[in-house]
């Protein structure tokens, strides 16, 4: 198989080894609007001093417990490093989140496909441009919704 791993067709609909419980309802942990990186303002009150999750668009669909395990307690911005345009704006927004909104931490959640690492690079560039320093974490999600790695950069 060749071609871009980010758009390669893979079908895992036959996956049977599904652990977990289907019982009970889980509430949304989203506490803000908007969430798309081009639409959010770093000066929005929901970013001030908070822990931020910068999530690649696909991650929330891949991770079964995205809300419970990763969104809870955080503010969010989402982006796609493969398809979004004007991504230099994202670097400036991350810088502003760190310097002006004085966010506490930045967790970047990406898919395992190579193009998604572009979002981690955007986060690193924004953090490097910022005067303030904060801890930045990278979380890599597998195509089947498993966490492949979670580490501080």
């Amino acid at each position, binding site marked *: 198989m060749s071609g871009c791993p980010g758009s390669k067709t893979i079908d895992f609909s036959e996956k049977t080894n599904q652990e977990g419980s289907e019982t009970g309802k889980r509430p949304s942990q989203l506490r803000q609007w908007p969430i798309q990186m081009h639409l959010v303002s770093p000066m929005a009150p929901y970013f001030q001093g908070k822990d931020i999750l910068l999530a690649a668009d696909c991650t929330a669909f891949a991770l079964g417990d995205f809300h419970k395990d990763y969104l809870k307690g*955080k503010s969010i911005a989402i982006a796609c490093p493969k398809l979004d345009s004007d991504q230099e704006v994202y670097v400036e927004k991350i810088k502003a989140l760190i310097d002006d909104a004085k966010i*506490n931490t930045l967790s970047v959640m990406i898919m395992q496909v190579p193009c998604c690492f572009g979002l981690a690079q955007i986060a690193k560039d924004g953090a490097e441009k910022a005067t303030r320093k904060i*801890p*930045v974490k990278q979380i890599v999600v597998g195509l089947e919704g498993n966490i492949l790695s979670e580490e*501080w950069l």
Partner: protein
Amino acid sequence: MHKVINQEIKQIISAYPEVGRILEEYNIGCVPCSVGSCLLKDVVGIHNLDPEKEATLMYRIEKAIYPGRNVPKPVVDASKKSAPKKITYSPPVKKLVDEHVLIKRLLALIPSVAEYTETSMKVDKDLILRCVDFIRNYADKYHHMKEEDILFKYVDEKAEVIQIMYKDHDTGRGYVRQAVEGAEKGNKAQIKENLLAYRELLTQHIKKEDEILYPWIDRQLSTTQVGEVFQKCNAADASVGDALPRKYEKFIIELEEKFLQEVTK
């Protein structure tokens, strides 16, 4: 077994030396520990062994304590996370690990300083006091205080492992006081004895922190807490300025050059 896992490790090793040997096999260095007041359950938990190793270790310890008992084969708790293959640290903890490097460079020089003191006609009081100044102001004030005033506040400070760290810090301060007294009196043996004791203590202390304590603390810190510790440590560093770590790095480089020249004379 329930009673035993809540006992201090020193008592257990004293009563059942085989347990000490088993722990050594798993790189759990309780036998030489001068305090030994950690409970067996904490000793095992803090090392973050993978579930299979932990179950086997507990099985072997129980067999060593109760050789006649029909101990069931180890049961692996698959729900527990496996230990990571390599140690990684959160950014604030990584900064503390990095600060250990400069301290270890001084520790590496202490035998040369001690030998130089012993063989010199007269005690080089200025040299000893400059080493003490590094220990007091870089190792202790700059580094240990961030542990005591910030990092340790995020875990159970009453935990034995934290108490042992506090005790190590205090013991180290005692050795330094004794070394200063030796320098004031011109007592070469007192200087040598206490500097070497400090070296031995801090070498083990740093190893415990890098390999056991810091990873244990990191596992307990939430993302929010990592951010808080990071900002508090940065504020503590900013309060003394960049000049302080630069000054002490320069001192270590000078000391290394001095003793490298002594060796190559």
